[in-house]
């Protein structure tokens, strides 16, 4: 899971924090949380689709 967490942090930082300020404001926090949930949805969907092709 270590690599997944690193990927999420990097992808979601790039999507949500375009002008880093002195704190992570609430809209950035919400964006990161949503982005993380979607990234894991995507990961699950991609894994399933890929596994189906391997069979």
């Amino acid at each position: 899971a270590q690599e997944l967490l690193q990927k999420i942090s990097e992808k979601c930082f790039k999507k949500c924090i375009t002008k880093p300020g002195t704190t992570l404001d609430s809209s950035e926090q919400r964006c990161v949380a949503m982005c993380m949930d979607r990234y894991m949805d995507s990961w699950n969907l991609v894994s399933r689709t890929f596994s189906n092709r391997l069979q």
Partner: protein
Amino acid sequence: SQKAQLQQQIHKLNDVCWDLCVDKPREKMDGRTETCLCNCVDRFVDTSLLVAGRFQNLINKHQ
């Protein structure tokens, strides 16, 4: 190991397909994004098979 290699490929696929299909993250995964992700994985596999097949042909020709 083979499991680690498979995980690696899923990381790569998710990386490429996320960049292609997801613009702004939303409250829920919508149908259009899901379709794009599934098609992206399938077409990526098609592309890899096409590339591997052509490469095999090249090797056979040169033997």
